[in-house]
């Protein structure tokens, strides 16, 4: 038996619905249709009245989740594509994120964001929004890279009292598989060492984990062992795990699929530069998407995001510095 990343997300929602009467699902096309990606397939039949189709109203969808959370429910919202969360942005950052600080009433909502690029998806169905949401105090931002994490982290998010932005990567939906669903897991907000090494550290998350692991593998041909840290959650950011790895390797490359300006890689480098400067043997480096909207054509798209080749090339430069 194997289970895909997407099936793991569906299974986590099924389990949350089964064990917690406070949970309900809300989003566009998620009922009988089962969702644009089928992440809620058959759930409206298994859990009648608790998997609700929403109108095309991202602001109201998030607003409804907030009101329901105030009344003690645990809504899981599916925004059809992360890009469209821009239309629900106000409710997320100004209402959900501020509620606990202002009123001492917590806001346990989960906003699932099918994120990231796939070939042919173009500028408005490919975005990575994690840095934008991480910017705002009051939100937890998760970016699972494995099917096991997609399952366990989503269930952990349901148990949290604070609003969680759950960035699930569409590129991983169908291809990435786990042997089985995990029965225990590392806490969601701790980073994981995905590969051990001693010559350099790559810190990354979500789909870029696989490009980074390929690059690290490629460098073994040059005689280098590169450590790869999977952040899993970008807010809170497991800075200690990053510093511990940099302490072992002395060299840091941060890789993200999102745009560079003010993003996760910039934050990582700022933290390591200010808190771990003496650990560094070379200037920290980063790789991100190119500074344009995400292009439609597969030729352009595959070059827009960091590739294993680009990561390997940057690693070689970093190790020679």
């Amino acid at each position, binding site marked *: 038996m194997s289970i895909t990343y997407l099936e793991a997300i569906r299974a986590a929602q099924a389990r949350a619905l089964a064990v917690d009467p406070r949970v309900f699902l809300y989003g566009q096309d998620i009922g009988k249709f089962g969702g644009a990606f089928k992440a809620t397939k058959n759930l409206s039949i298994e859990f009648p009245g608790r998997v609700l189709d929403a109108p095309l109203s991202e602001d109201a969808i998030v607003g409804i989740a907030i009101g329901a959370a105030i009344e003690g429910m645990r809504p899981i919202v599916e925004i059809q594509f992360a890009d469209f969360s821009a239309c629900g942005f106000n*409710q997320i950052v100004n209402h959900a994120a501020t509620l606990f600080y202002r009123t001492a009433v917590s806001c346990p909502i989960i906003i699932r964001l099918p994120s990231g690029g796939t070939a042919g998806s173009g500028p408005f169905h490919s975005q990575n929004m994690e840095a934008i949401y991480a910017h705002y105090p009051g939100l937890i931002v998760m970016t699972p890279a494995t099917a096991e994490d997609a399952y366990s982290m989503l269930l952990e998010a349901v148990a949290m009292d604070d609003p969680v932005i759950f960035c699930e990567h569409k590129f991983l939906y169908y291809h990435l598989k786990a042997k089985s669903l995990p029965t225990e897991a590392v806490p969601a907000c701790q980073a994981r060492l995905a590969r051990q090494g001693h010559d350099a550290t790559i810190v990354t998350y979500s789909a870029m984990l696989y490009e980074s692991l390929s690059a690290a593998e490629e460098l073994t041909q040059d005689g280098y062992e590169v450590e790869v840290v999977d952040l899993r959650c970008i807010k809170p950011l497991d800075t200690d795990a990053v510093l511990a790895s940099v302490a072992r390797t002395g060299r840091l490359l941060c890789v993200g699929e999102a745009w560079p300006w003010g993003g996760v890689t910039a934050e990582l480098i700022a933290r390591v530069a200010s808190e771990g400067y003496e650990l560094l043997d070379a200037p920290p480096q980063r790789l991100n998407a190119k500074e344009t909207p995400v292009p439609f054509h597969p030729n352009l798209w595959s070059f827009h995001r960091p590739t294993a080749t680009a990561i390997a090339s940057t690693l070689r430069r970093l190790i020679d510095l």
Partner: protein
Amino acid sequence: MLDLLETEPQRKVTAQERYIQAYRFMLVARLLEEKLASLYRAGLIKGGVFLGKGQEAFSVSLGLHLRKGDIYAPLIRDQAGRMAFGDTILDTLRTYLGSQLGPMRGRDGNIHRGSPGHGYYAMISHLGAMISAVVGGLMARRLRGETDIVGGSCIGEGGTSTGAFHEGINVAAVEKVPLVLLVANNQYAYSTPVSRQFACRNLLDKAVGYGLEGHEVDGTNLEDCLHVVGNAVRAAREGGGPQLVVGTLLRLAGHGEHDDASYVDPVHYQASYGGDCMHIAERILIERSWLSREELVEWRREISLEVELLSEKVLTEPAPDPLEEDWSAISNVELRDSYSER
């Protein structure tokens, strides 16, 4: 703390009793807001003061018809409705003056106050945002099998131009939730007149357009407001779906106390909606001998004294101390991003 009233007790309240009860809340709101304006002018309130002057009759009609267990998400000019729902003079003063002992603990101020755990949602400044939150609260109650609930919210004519208003009332109609939304058409959104705000003939047409029941009322007439808003609340409670009530009135203050409202066209003061609902209510109370002039004077004295004493008390209360603040925007301290502490 929120002093939630059983505003619809078992005993049938007569129209006269309800009118007098409503007037009392209006008077508390008016006198309290006069004190807030005075504290602002004295430099004792930071930020702003936003008055509901002229809107008390319309506002109180919703607060008074909601019950304990209902949901209420008022907006900036709803001091009267807030008092009727169960907010207190003390909490209002504490929030405006930033007392550490107030419900918002200096973290948010003025009209951004509430007690969401008691159905009293704390507005955010982004107009229209509270509508869908109330819809969500009502959907949650329905999912839990609770019935006999109403969610009330308020907005101005300016707020009807937002996307959130459109999405909120549309989904309220789709979900057929018991929402009662008051739209106070007070002629100005800050300085913007209605001619620059909307082009539909009547805001009530929006009710038809979105599938809500529509009601219209002279917002300066307390008797009419109690009747029309009361009917809307009853209809929502009895399963009639969402209700939109448009009240026509005039904002009798600036947008905030920093604003002299010199842009208001004087023609409005002569219009049928340009009167002061307090004066109209007082005239009726006396004409019908429901209250005497002496009783009115005594009420004013009593309430002013209470406001005065409470404001003196709050002025001596501790302000929030940044060194004691936990500076956490999330409830789980273990999940705080620790960068700022390093």
